């Protein structure tokens, strides 16, 4: 168990492979990331705080984390359905649908952003129908619940506003949930469901008390991956967000903006905050997963 203990592992090569792993991770992940911290170190503490807490930056944190969370939740829900359909049913064209799921992985995100904008802009295929509906919906909401500024919160337009950011982030996050759920789903043996049925469970009970607990850890992993991906996404969002300060500027855009202004330190300061928060959230999700495994999974 212990890392440097005397106990011999049954499997040979532990020291070598761990050493290789650490060296590799260091080279690929840690050294570039620590460069961000070192650049930031040029800032005084007060400047650092000022850079990462200016109102415009704080507004972007709220937006980035909020919309990423929303997109990951939606992906978790629809990704579950999609994975279920792909694993459980055979239908013509299934393999094509299955391959389509990977497209967001492969497509340059800028292309995705441009394509989404072209479709959802008010002169686009979908946008020309959907945008008036959306605007009317927001208008209606504002009449019903006037004490919330709905145009500010959910955006009055589709493309070039907050809904556009949500669309882009949902797009890039989709494969993560589907691809983490698929293997788990296909390993679930139908016998378990049959056993549940013979023991008198109805379909709803089988779903919520037998299948879902098995899927939950993988679902959380997929959710966490989709969320992390959405947080860092830049390429597709800038095309569709409208990029209005205090309203639809995501944090990665602010980092780029700072670079464009030759403010390397300010840019890395924001990056450091993002990294730290993202790491914290991923650790939190990880422990949630462990908990859910112990609490619900039982098997693993």
């Amino acid at each position: 168990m212990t890392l440097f203990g005397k106990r011999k592992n049954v499997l040979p090569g532990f020291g070598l492979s761990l050493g290789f792993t650490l060296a590799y991770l260091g080279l690929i992940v840690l050294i570039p990331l620590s460069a961000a911290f070192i650049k930031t170190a040029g800032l005084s503490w007060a400047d650092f705080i000022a850079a990462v807490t200016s109102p415009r930056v704080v507004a972007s944190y709220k937006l980035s984390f909020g919309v990423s969370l929303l997109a990951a939740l939606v992906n978790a829900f629809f990704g579950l359905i999609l994975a279920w359909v792909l694993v459980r049913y055979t239908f013509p064209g299934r393999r094509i649908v299955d391959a389509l799921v990977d497209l967001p992985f492969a497509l340059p995100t800028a292309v995705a952003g441009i394509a989404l904008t072209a479709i959802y802009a008010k002169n686009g295929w979908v946008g020309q129908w959907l945008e008036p509906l959306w605007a009317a919906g927001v208008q209606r909401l504002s009449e019903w619940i006037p004490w919330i500024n709905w145009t500010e919160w959910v955006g009055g337009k589709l493309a070039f506003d907050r809904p556009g950011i949500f669309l882009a982030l949902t797009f890039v996050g989709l494969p993560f949930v589907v691809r983490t759920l698929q293997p788990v789903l296909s390993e679930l043996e139908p016998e378990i469901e049959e056993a549940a049925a013979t023991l008198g469970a109805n379909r709803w009970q089988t779903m919520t008390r037998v299948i879902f607990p098995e899927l939950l850890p993988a679902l959380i992993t997929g959710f966490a991956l989709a969320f992390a991906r959405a947080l860092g996404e830049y390429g597709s969002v800038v095309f569709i967000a409208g990029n209005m300060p205090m309203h639809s500027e995501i944090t990665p855009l602010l980092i780029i903006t700072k670079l464009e202004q030759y403010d390397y330190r300010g840019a890395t300061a924001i990056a450091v905050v993002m990294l730290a928060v993202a790491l914290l959230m991923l650790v939190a999700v990880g422990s949630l997963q462990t908990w859910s495994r112990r609490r619900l999974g039982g098997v693993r």
Partner: protein
Amino acid sequence: MISSFHFSRFILVLGLIGAVLAPLARADRTLLNASYDVTREFYKEYNAAFITHWKEISGETIVINQSHGGSSKQVRSVIDGLAADVVTMNGVPDIDQLAKVSLIPADWQQRLPHDSIPYTSTILFLVRKGNPKQIKDWPDLIKEGTGVIIPNPKTSGNGRYSYLAAWGYALRQPGGDEAQAKAFVKKLFGNVPVLDSGGRGATTTFAQRAIGDVLLTFENEAALILKEFGSDGIEVVVPSTSVLAENPVVWVDKVVNKKGTEKLAKAYLEYLFSPVGQELAAKYYFRPLDASALAHYPGRFPAIPLFSVPEVFGSWEKAQKIHFTDGGIFDQLYQK
């Protein structure tokens, strides 16, 4: 099968090595010009002209490479080590960044004629066909319900000049003062529905996504946009007054000293001020300094009063500091 695969890979590798080494075999001196997005066509033709000129006066054959991209991205590349012999930009502040890291001396503008600015441009309006909103001049831009497309002034030369042009217009009105200018730009940016980070993005937003009623852009870029989208119904509107957009050029001392290309780089930039360079600039819709080059294109450059940034704002440094630093006036426009 396997060995033939290996063999073909071997050939491929050989080919690649050859491709990499081939330029080294030719010992022609090279010059790299790092410029911004829309100068590509102009410099392509200018480079060919200069290569011929240099061959005539020195007998040497040279190769000129071009690198184009967003202005600040280009300058950042040079700061981070791109060995560009010359840098040609659309704003003094970008080149000042090179002086800040001592790649060039602080007085770089004094080394070439006319403050190192061989050609200029200005900010004009592009509107939709027939000008349905009747946009004629700056005050029309702040009317309610007018959508104005300007890229982010903090990240694009285009947006920066547009912002300063609006400010300068308001300030120079009879009885105009700072407060009125601020109110004017606040209203103006209240009409901006999308803030793209660069001029190219703003053009797409306006021309292809049909967002906004008017696009503010450089005169030379307006010409390119009209060429590309003219049939879709875009018209130019010339305001009563605007800003003088200066396009400074500089050779990068640290690079040319190392490569031994100082004389060549200097000659390259000086040639921009010659009749040939001036004529080509005018051909590509940059306002030349040279009156005879200007005369070759009657009607192309509307003679409206242009004010320069140092004239209205004291200096570029001041304008940059007051308006575009974090927490500056531009940021204040969006504070709630």
